[in-house]
């Protein structure tokens, strides 16, 4: 589904990502862990097409198609979704109208008609219930004055509505208490299927207890330096990141 090979990317001439290799297949959950400043969020932004980052070298394909030059909206139309670490506040646009616009613009891009209002409403209700989101919340301005937890829950609500093929969760656990974390993780797990995939970007192992990864990759200084199964996450939790850095030096 996602094929990344020797990816170098960064701001202007400077590489932040220095040769990443990653393959994600349908049905898989990948976790990318790493210390602060290792390039985790940059990686998420580069896959989603944020314009301030440039790809300098390498291959980035989604379902066999080169997406390096695609606009963020074109990537979204193909089924990529980024849950933001810091969702942006947009006063004047309600959560409901935002999600309606996003869904219908995506449908339009695919040559589909707008989703009938009744169907949209039903879907909104269903997904809001699943994530224990209060109905009043939906008529508030997007992210404006939301608590950290509300923002993250709103991201997962959008994820549930958009039903992407590949979801990238960027530090979705930060700012969540344990109850909210369970609700969010539970929501993500319900959306999992054999046809879609998830990349969880996180600093801590905590979220991975609820969204269980098939693969764990450790990103240090713009490179994946170690990959393994979920036990790697526990190891990192126990030992921190320093031992990996030591290992790298030794190599």
């Amino acid at each position, binding site marked *: 589904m996602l094929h990344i090979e020797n990816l170098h990317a960064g701001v202007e001439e400077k590489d932040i990502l220095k040769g990443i290799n990653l393959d994600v297949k349908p049905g898989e959950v990948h976790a990318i862990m790493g210390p602060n400043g290792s390039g985790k969020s940059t990686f998420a932004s580069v896959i*989603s*097409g*944020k*314009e*301030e980052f440039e790809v300098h070298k390498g291959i980035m394909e989604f379902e066999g198609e080169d997406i390096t030059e695609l*606009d*963020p*909206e074109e*990537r*979204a*139309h193909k089924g990529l*979704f*980024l849950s*933001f670490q810091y*969702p*942006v506040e*947009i*006063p*004047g*646009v*309600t959560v409901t*109208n*935002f999600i309606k*616009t*996003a*869904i219908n*613009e*995506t449908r339009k*891009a695919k040559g589909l008609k707008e989703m009938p209002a009744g169907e949209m409403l039903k879907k909104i209700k269903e997904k809001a219930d699943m994530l224990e989101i209060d109905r009043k919340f939906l008529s508030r301005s997007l992210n404006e004055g939301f608590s950290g937890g509300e923002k993250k829950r709103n991201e997962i609500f*959008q994820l549930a509505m*958009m039903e992407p093929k590949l979801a990238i969760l960027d530090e979705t656990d930060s700012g969540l208490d344990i109850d909210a974390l369970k609700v969010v993780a539970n929501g993500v797990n319900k959306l999992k299927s054999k046809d879609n995939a998830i990349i969880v970007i996180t600093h801590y192992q905590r979220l991975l207890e609820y969204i269980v990864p098939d693969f764990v990759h450790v990103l240090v200084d713009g490179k994946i330096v170690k990959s393994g199964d979920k036990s790697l996450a526990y190891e990192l939790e126990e030992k921190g990141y320093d031992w990996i850095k030591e290992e790298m030096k030794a190599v």
Partner: protein
Amino acid sequence: MSLKDKLVTSYFAFEDNLADDSPIHTMRNDAIKNFEATGFPTKKDEEWKYTSLRSLLKTDYSIFPKPLDRTIEFREVKNYFLHDVDTYKIVFIDGVYSSFLSETTHDSIDVCLLSSALAKPKYKPVLEAYFNKAAKKDSLSSLNTAFAKEGAYIHIPKHKEVEKPIEIINFSTGTESAALLQPRNLVVVGENSHVQIIERHQSLSENPVFTNSVTEVFAEKRAFVDYYKIQNDVSTASLIDSTYISQERESNCRLHTFSFGGKLTRNNLNFYQKGERCNSTLNGITILEDKQHVDHNTLVHHTQPNCESHQDYKGIFDDASTGVFNGKVLVDSIAQKIDAFQQNNNILISDKATINSKPQLEIFADDVACSHGCTIGQLDEEALFYLRSRGIAQKEARALLMYAFANNVLESVKIPELKRRINKLIAEKIGVSVGFQL
């Protein structure tokens, strides 16, 4: 001959044709003297620092444009009217009243013409009590007073809720290569009465039009006035709109200005609160492109205690367009417990666009809550990326952010059809076809 000289010379010929017993005879003569002494404002005048009339005044305008030699059919101009709702209409074509397009009334309220009010003795007491009583004696208002002969005359007696909105529309058709129009509106709203008014100036040709309009509104005790100005004229038309609103106690006046078109637009908007517990709202959305220029010059004068005023102006400026916001709030020493709020937010879309924003608070009372805020910025790149990553294309994402920015002002429009129309105008102006429901 300069435009000023031409105007002063023409005045005497104009005056000769008017009856000496007109209730405003002396006022006219004083007004032309005033104009002759002061002339058109220049950039040296502090109030006109950012708006120059110089290039506008080079044009040789016809002061008394000749009338159109044919009838304008309703279908030709239908789009400029509201049509889902029934309205009163006061329509002028090149400064001349069009009975054909208008729908006036004398049935318990007067929605008619200034010219007939000036001619008939029964209106004399109203004219004597109100005409030119709120307008400043500055050069442009004086010029208008000197030549005042036509415009809307609206008189609502006590305890009347006017159910239909009143549309005042001034068309110009280009019968002259360039024309100067000076409509003069008088609106008197009696105690406890309600009225909604929509005003627009619209050129039907590309020939330059310079409109120097003056409107006086008097809101008596507990009156409610909701006034909308739609400024979406062609790119060769310029407008100076001086509006004076005088409020008695417990009255509530709201004036909304939507500026999307025109070459140069100057809004002199003056609110005078003369009684306690008045409420004034002034807001606007300005969206400009090319070399368009809009200047909002507002004044709220609080002379009595326990009143409120709210100002909220949003501007979006593209290309080499320029905007000015100069908002003055004046609080007299006896006007305690005033709540005056002023906000001016701007987005510059291009590097060449300019906005000059100047709040002025002059407060002589010590127990008041006055605040003002002014922002100038660009569209938020992070917000754009956020919207785009959700599948909303760049153009639509930009439009959505602009809509969101202007939304709270749009929300203040209380006539649903008008709100839809303004929504559409904004969409056209921003260049998108999606109808966001915000």
